[in-house]
């Protein structure tokens, strides 16, 4: 069963931002999501998620002073669900074109209002059979080390032989980061499950 999780509200070749349909339910950090663009499927890794007010100028105010449980804040103020939103940003890691997985950037960015689906474990496993996409993540900017580690942990869980997968991914990283031992070490330490 494919889970539709949100809708694109900002798109570029290298990544997109999507709004979740449900408040506080972004896909897991580092997890793979999928968007269809014509006859290609774009794959992206969830790089960042945030819950904010729908109006940039209006910050939420604390309302739970008199409540027993945190959930009671929302049941007492049902309008809150409509005043807040959860967005997430994803980094494009490849696409599928005519059944072939390509671990490089797609020809076009996704469209606004495209639906974003969470990748099933089988799809994740299929996509991560090759590890060339790590090259895109290495240069993903801020928090890329965390992102790589989280993405590999997630992919390992979807893989039939998680340890072997992590070792070969680690070796791939060691080659990519051959001139930056500190970074390599910090990622490797985060890969331990």
């Amino acid at each position: 069963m494919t889970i539709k999780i949100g809708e694109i509200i900002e798109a570029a070749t290298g990544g997109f931002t999507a709004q979740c349909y449900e408040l506080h339910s972004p896909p897991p950090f580092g997890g793979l999501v999928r968007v269809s663009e014509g006859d290609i499927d774009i794959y992206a890794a969830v790089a960042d998620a945030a819950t904010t007010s729908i109006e940039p100028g209006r910050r939420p105010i604390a309302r739970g002073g008199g409540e027993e449980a945190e959930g009671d804040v929302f049941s007492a103020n049902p309008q809150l669900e409509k005043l807040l939103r959860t967005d997430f940003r994803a980094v494009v890691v490849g696409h599928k074109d005519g059944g072939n997985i390509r671990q490089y950037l797609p020809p076009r960015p996704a469209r606004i209002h495209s639906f974003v689906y969470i990748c099933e474990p089988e799809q994740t496993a299929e996509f991560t059979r090759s590890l060339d996409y790590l090259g895109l993540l290495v240069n993903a900017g801020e928090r890329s080390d965390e992102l790589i580690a989280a993405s590999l942990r997630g992919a390992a869980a979807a893989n039939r032989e998680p340890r072997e997968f992590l070792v070969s991914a680690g070796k791939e990283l060691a080659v990519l980061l051959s001139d930056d031992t500190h970074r390599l070490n910090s990622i490797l330490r985060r890969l331990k499950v």
Partner: protein
Amino acid sequence: MQERKLGMVVAGSLTGGVDVRLDGEVSVEDIAVGRYVTIGGRKRRFFGMITDVSLDASDPRMMASPPDVTDPFIAEVIAGTSTFGRLHVLPLMTIGGDAESLLEGPQPVKTVPAHFSAVHDAGEEDVSQVFGQVEERQFYIGTPLDMETKVRLDPAELVKRSNGVFGKSGTGKTFLARLVLIGIIQENAAVNLIFDMHSEYGWQGTSEGGGTVKSLKQLFPSSVAVFALDAESARRRKVSVDSIVEIGYDEIEPEDIAMLRETLGLTEAAVQATYRLARRFGDRAWLQGFLAIDGREGLNALADELGEHEATMAALYRRLDSLRRLKFLVPHARDNAIQSILGYLDRGIHVVLEFGRYTDLAAYMLVANLLTRRIHEKYRERMERATAEDGAKPRPLVITIEEAHKFLSRELAGQTIFGTIAREMRKYNVSLMVIDQRPSGIDEEVMSQMGTKITCLLDNERDIESVLTGVSGKGELKGVLAKLDSRQQALIFGHAVPMPVVVRTRDYGTNESYKELGFRDALEAKRMAEEEARDLFAD
């Protein structure tokens, strides 16, 4: 069978050898210098020897802040990627890929394999392709490291030039030399004359463990004769001796004394005086005549007569007088030792001359030099006659000497018969096998003329340098030579093998090994017995 892949070629040159990056799965600790590898180039296969192993890292900062290798995961990831082993391989031979070059067999290398060629452990098949199949009843010296393939050392090729067996003491020089001699006897490549300083080659030798091993006479009773200088010692050791050698004072010439200059501590003036003595007393009577002089007055009178310094004469007398303790020296020998040795050699019987208790250098050098000079002379005469008359040439002769650096030192090599033999190669069908622990003491020219060098462990820098003079890939082989085991391992290179090889020498000393090595004699004995039986019942 596909052999284990070790890695791939990443850099290199023909003169310096190629660098191989080890794959992550291969541990540097499983690699040993001296082992063979094959490199699959695009057009041909290369055959090389590992000459160095090193560690490398892609990022030098790795050394400053090492990763946490106690974690097996991290250790596994970085092995072969961030950190990796590096091999240095000396390419030695190539085997072409097409049918024609397969027929030609392995050729010396003239180029290096292309970038990223795969490197594998050499298999038994590869090794036997290079060294050739060893047929049954053919001599082999041992097997390459960690392999079963036999390495053939062709005795016929070997005896074409002078050869050397080197190694520091206790590394098995004697065992190796004995093996090589057995090979020569087995395949009848030449006839041997062995100057056996420590009585190791005749009847039996000692092994490192303190036991005894059979020697040539026991393996080839009908084709080896043992001569002894010291009848008493032979009797004590219960060695049946074919002949006792005595040397007459009348056989010693001034040249023989000149050779002993250093050993006896003679001055140049004293050596010159011997020539004057020879003129004064006659070539054959000088030593006898000189030693017969009694008292200082007599000596002084002689010095006056010859125009020599009195002190020189006195010193010469003292030194030569010390030769009297050598019991095998007699005023006049009953038998002519040289004729008798030549007689055996002519019949194809190998001669071992045991020195018994006369293990000091003066005795050894005197006898070896004296006999060799005369025998070489005879060989030269015969060879010249044979060439002139187009007749039969004398059998090739291999003369084995120990402590060779004493005979072939820079000062003496130009003067002694051994230097001459080593330099003239096989012009007169005589070649040397020198056994020595101090190759750096041997004259460079002589070293460079040696066809095949078999060397056990050497650790002195100068000795290593000297042994490897004129060998391509010298720098690389140095490391291999210095890292040999001190037992049963030797590096062989030169004329008789297609490429340098580190061998584990074959076992010697077990009944099995004797049977394997002595086969020719057993066969011959059988054939002779059959012949005799035929003769007996012929009529």
